């Protein structure tokens, strides 16, 4: 019997050994990847030809993409560099997408069907300025119709075929800023209208073939222009004067300039400042006055008259030619939870071509932009579709009174992420029926076995995938035993909070921040406000969302408390002060609400929640609260303590003043702070001691109050290539934030930033550039406690002569020593994170977000200062890897496998309940989630475990036993007969 049990055990063990990396058919089981593009800035429809209908968009995340107009899927997209903001997009020759970026200095053409770059042209520019792209709407392949680009004081004509610069005109000397380029159809002369110093209007007539100025006219406008301009027809533009009270129509028929002034007060009574809206309408312009939008018709002689006025909350599209020389435009306005889409003819505003009412989610906010496109229906009438961009950055296509598709583009600009538990499964809620009968159960496992032996047909593979998803029950909205199902809460720049399910990445709920003080606050950061356990079990957990009314740091803050289960806002308050820093304190009140301190720009701190209980807890710990600020500009790190309650009539009892306790001043001529980092406050450390191979004991210096600071020489703060090795050096510090004591200082000569670092337990790993070797380097610094290093002797422990029970205080001077080691690393890095598990027992992996937007998992064992060139046998047994000069990049250990997290910005890890496993969520333009087991899943069987094979083997064994028994009986019997 014992043998059989042993055999069974052996079986289990042999099946439980899993490979660390993924098989191709396992991709997408525990991970998901979502592709986004960001908030759309420009959109150009391409629907003329039969076949695929597309829309070309460019976004605020510097993405140019081609979307399927039917389903909203991405055909192709390109994420340009972070400094390569797109200024304009157009379609040339019916087959190239033209993008102008980097303030008019880079012009690229992309192949429309597949997104391959066709040509790229760098244009000269002298200074920063508004840029302008004008693509002729002409399908003729001809050099007579070049693309004209203005940017940085130069006007260029570029051939659409190969990107060749046909001619360029230097306007830098005159200070001429081009506002409009007009190309009358069929003519090779282009009209270029612009301003000189915003006071003189100049029109150039330029031969588009050779770039020669045919004629030039200029006229000084005494009042000066404000720069807002709207072109209403091929020979007229309307400008606002510098006081924003007079509309000036500039006509330039045949190169003659004429001004015609119309005060806004003539059009609207009691008018304030006017503002010209961006939509281009033919022979008409939209002006915003007195919080209303008025439509002003421009007559033949430049006469202006008001034809219509709408409420302020109206978004409009450019006008678009429809049949019979008429132009139409779309306007969208809100009414309660509905939006009204109207398409009107420009000439007859009473003639509404289309009126649709669509129910709209309140949490999308208002409509920001409308792009309209028309198509010919089968009955030869005009149909319209509108692409709208909402306040939460989402993109929707409206057609025939319905939302055809929508994309949650807000998720392309995530600013902060936290995780939350799902509700516990209630009694009465039955567990999903996964397997019905034994037969089906067995069938499923046979299928899995076939899959793992590569005997499965394609249909079987599909069935296996389905079965796996079903059996894992990973998409349920309740807590599971292993803690694999969780909510990821992501706050976006638009001020919207999303809850994503870890199982499949779907949006469970979303909520747009609101405030009384301002229209729409920006989202800054997220904090765990209430995580109920123990005595407050019946409460729902909640998060604190910190927002701000405006982009300035002194703008007033907005706090919202959101219920995690329901996504409903509990309360929201406009706090009267600014938010510079939010400090979660290690105290909770009786309802498990965490105490938070919020520091403002004046130097006061404010306690939240504003309850007397919180105040009494805080008063008890008043002397023990320290915090620090980093002044990156002046190179000073300051430590602060609480001083007293605020005085003054506006102050309440929850406001406190602080005083400066210590400062660390870095000499500004030689050091500039480029990176600071602390440990994650909620990190779990399993053991303080580390046993060496020679039975030696090292005590980790685990302190929550350590700050990692990296500084470089001011010259080396720029880009790589701008400094020589002799001019730049990198210095890193470990600073105690209670006392301001510098515990460790390490200097790297001939190195420069950017520094990307990760701080966990007692070690820091940071990535920087070594100018001498011209390679990236990674350095690890481990910090150990010397004062407790004497406690190695067993006798000391037995006799109690150790200092392990001595209280550890942050005030005393710690005796520490450090170990460090450096390695080369072959890639640029965008961000580094580290895995975190529930109890901290599992070994750690570094998650390195590379510049190729992939995430590499690297065992901490590779960055261990104890690595030597020739490790001893004992060290090898312990798992110490022989020292190599560079860190390995193993393609199978990319956790993103074949995906790219385009525009990667951050990686967040969170522990699951199963000790071996950790959640990893990466965000950028794309989102990616996966579960990782850094030391393999040693505490559970994998999904791949084949029960069928086990069962078959057991059955076979039992059968074999009975057969041999029967045989031996027979033999015994025959022997007895002998």
């Amino acid at each position, binding site marked *: 019997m014992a043998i059989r049990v042993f055999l069974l055990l052996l079986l289990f063990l*042999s099946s439980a050994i899993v490979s660390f990396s993924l098989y191709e058919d396992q991709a997408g089981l525990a991970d998901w990847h979502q592709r986004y593009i960001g908030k759309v800035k420009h959109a150009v429809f391409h629907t003329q030809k039969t076949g695929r209908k597309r829309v070309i968009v460019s976004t605020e995340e510097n993405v140019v993409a081609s979307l399927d107009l039917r389903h909203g899927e991405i055909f192709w997209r390109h994420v340009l560099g972070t400094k390569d903001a797109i200024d304009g997009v157009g379609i040339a020759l019916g087959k190239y997408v033209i993008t102008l970026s980097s303030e008019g200095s880079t012009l690229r053409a992309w192949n429309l069907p597949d997104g391959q770059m066709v040509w790229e042209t760098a244009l000269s520019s002298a200074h920063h300025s508004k840029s302008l792209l004008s693509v002729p709407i002409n399908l003729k392949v001809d050099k007579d119709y070049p693309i004209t680009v203005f940017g940085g004081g130069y006007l260029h004509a570029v051939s659409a075929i190969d990107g060749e610069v046909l001619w360029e005109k230097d306007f830098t000397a005159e200070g001429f800023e081009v506002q409009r380029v007009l190309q009358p159809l069929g003519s090779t002369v282009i009209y270029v209208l612009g301003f000189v110093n915003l006071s003189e209007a100049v029109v150039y007539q330029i031969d588009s073939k050779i770039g020669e100025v045919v004629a030039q006219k200029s006229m000084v406008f005494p009042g000066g222009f404000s720069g807002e301009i709207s072109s209403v027809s091929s020979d007229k533009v309307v400008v606002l004067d510098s006081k924003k009270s007079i509309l000036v129509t500039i006509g330039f028929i045949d190169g003659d300039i004429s001004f015609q002034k119309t005060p806004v007060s003539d059009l609207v009574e009691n008018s304030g400042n006017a503002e010209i809206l961006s939509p281009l309408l033919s022979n008409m312009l939209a002006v915003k006055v007195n919080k209303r939008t008025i439509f002003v018709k421009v007559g033949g002689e430049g006469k202006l008259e008001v034809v219509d006025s709408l409420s302020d909350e109206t978004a409009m599209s450019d006008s678009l030619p429809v049949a019979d020389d008429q132009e139409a435009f779309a306007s969208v306005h809100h009414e309660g939870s509905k939006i009204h889409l109207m398409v009107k003819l420009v000439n007859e505003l009473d003639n509404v071509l289309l009126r649709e009412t669509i129910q709209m989610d309140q949490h999308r906010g208002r409509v920001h932009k409308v792009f309209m496109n028309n198509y010919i229906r089968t009955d030869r009438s005009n149909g319209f579709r509108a692409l709208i961009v909402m306040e939460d950055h989402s993109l929707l296509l409206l057609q025939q009174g319905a939302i055809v598709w929508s994309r949650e583009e807000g998720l392309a600009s995530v600013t902060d992420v936290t995780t939350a538990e799902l509700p516990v499964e209630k009694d009465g809620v039955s567990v999903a029926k996964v397997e019905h009968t034994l037969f089906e159960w067995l069938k499923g496992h046979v299928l899995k076995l076939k899959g793992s032996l590569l005997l499965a047909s394609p249909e079987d593979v599909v069935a296996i995938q389905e079965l796996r998803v079903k059996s894992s029950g990973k998409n349920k909205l309740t807590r599971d035993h292993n803690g694999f199902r969780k909510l990821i809460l992501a706050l976006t720049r638009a001020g919207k909070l999303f809850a994503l399910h870890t199982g499949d990445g779907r949006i469970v709920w979303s909520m747009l921040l609101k405030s009384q003080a301002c229209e729409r606050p920006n989202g800054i950061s997220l904090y765990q406000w209430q995580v109920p356990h123990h005595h407050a079990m019946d409460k729902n957990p909640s998060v604190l969302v910190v927002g701000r009314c405006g982009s300035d740091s002194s703008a007033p803050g907005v706090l919202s408390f959101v219920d995690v289960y329901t996504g409903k806002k509990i309360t929201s308050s406009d706090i009267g002060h600014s938010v510079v820093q939010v400090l979660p304190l290690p105290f909770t009140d009786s309802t498990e609400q965490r105490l938070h301190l919020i520091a403002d720009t004046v130097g006061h701190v404010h306690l939240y929640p504003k309850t007397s209980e919180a105040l009494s807890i805080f008063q008890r710990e008043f002397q023990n609260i320290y915090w620090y600020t980093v002044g990156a500009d002046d190179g000073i790190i300051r430590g602060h303590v609480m001083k007293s309650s605020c005085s003054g009539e506006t102050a309440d009892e929850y406001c406190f003043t602080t005083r400066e306790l210590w400062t660390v001043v870095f000499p500004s001529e030689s050091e500039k702070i480029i990176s600071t980092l602390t440990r994650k406050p909620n990190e779990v450390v399993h053991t303080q001691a580390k046993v060496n191979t020679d039975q030696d004991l090292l005590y980790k210096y685990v302190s929550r109050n350590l700050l990692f600071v990296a500084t470089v020489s001011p010259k080396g703060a720029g*880009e790589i*290539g701008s400094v020589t090795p002799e001019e730049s050096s990198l210095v890193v510090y470990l600073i105690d934030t209670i006392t301001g004591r510098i515990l460790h200082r390490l200097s790297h000569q001939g190195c420069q930033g950017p520094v990307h670092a990760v701080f966990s337990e007692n070690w820091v790993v940071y990535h920087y550039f070594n*100018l001498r070797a011209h*390679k990236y380097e990674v350095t690890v610094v481990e910090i150990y406690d010397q004062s407790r290093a004497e406690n190695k002797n067993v006798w000391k422990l037995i006799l109690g002569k150790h200092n392990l029970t001595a209280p550890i205080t942050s005030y005393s001077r710690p005796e520490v020593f450090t170990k460090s080691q450096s390695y080369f690393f072959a890639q*640029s890095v965008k961000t580094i994170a580290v895995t975190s598990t529930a109890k901290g027992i599992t070994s750690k992996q570094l998650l390195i977000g590379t510049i190729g937007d992939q995430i590499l998992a690297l065992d901490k064992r590779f960055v261990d200062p104890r690595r030597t060139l020739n490790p001893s046998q004992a060290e090898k047994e312990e798992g110490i890897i022989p020292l190599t000069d560079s860190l390995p990049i193993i393609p199978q250990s990319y956790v993103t496998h074949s995906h790219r997290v385009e525009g990667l910005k951050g990686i967040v890890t969170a522990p699951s309940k199963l000790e071996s496993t950790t959640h990893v969520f990466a965000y950028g333009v794309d989102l990616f989630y996966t579960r990782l087991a850094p030391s393999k899943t040693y505490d559970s069987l994998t999904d791949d475990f084949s029960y069928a094979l086990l069962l078959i083997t057991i059955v076979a064994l039992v059968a*074999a036993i009975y057969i041999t028994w029967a045989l031996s009986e027979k033999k015994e019997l025959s022997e007895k007969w002998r």
Partner: protein
Amino acid sequence: MAPILRSTSLLALFVCHISLFFFFASNLPISSGSEDSYTITGRVRIPASTVIGHAAKFSNIKVILNGGQNVTFLRPDGYFTFHKVPAGTHLIEVYAMGYFFSPVRVDVSARHNGKVQATLTETRRSLTELVLEPLRAEQYYEMREPFNVMAIAKSPMGLMVGFMVVVVFLMPKLMENIDPEEMKSAQEQMRSQGVPSLSSLLPASR
């Protein structure tokens, strides 16, 4: 494994060099430009592949200057250009899914009118032309072993089954070879020691 790999890649390089000599000899990495800003032009070459989606892979290649300062893309012929690069020592990285490229150290000389010198930082090999090739192809997934009788036989379960077969079919043969006298004495000895036989383990054997 490694030496084989290296030799094949060397061979590939060799072949490519020859072809480059014929076709791109005129395309020396000379940069041009004004006094303080130059242009770096280079080419990315990926060994032709029969894999479907090779072209799609090609259109998603990014070339990155100085860790993200500038990002550019490849033209259909594989060429890329960085404009307005100041003189100095720069770093060019190529990112293509499925391939690993060594970062390239590029020295743009101000004295020689923007002459470009390029060195692969991983292999320390200097390039005569700025033609970048992948050091190796990357496979992001573990390969599943194809169905193999030997693999099954070698697995613990296979070994167990094999052992069983040995016990069932070979042991009786071995028994037969033993001298009957000896056998009897051995059996008696066993019985006296009370070692359970296989049959005694099962119920209803007696």
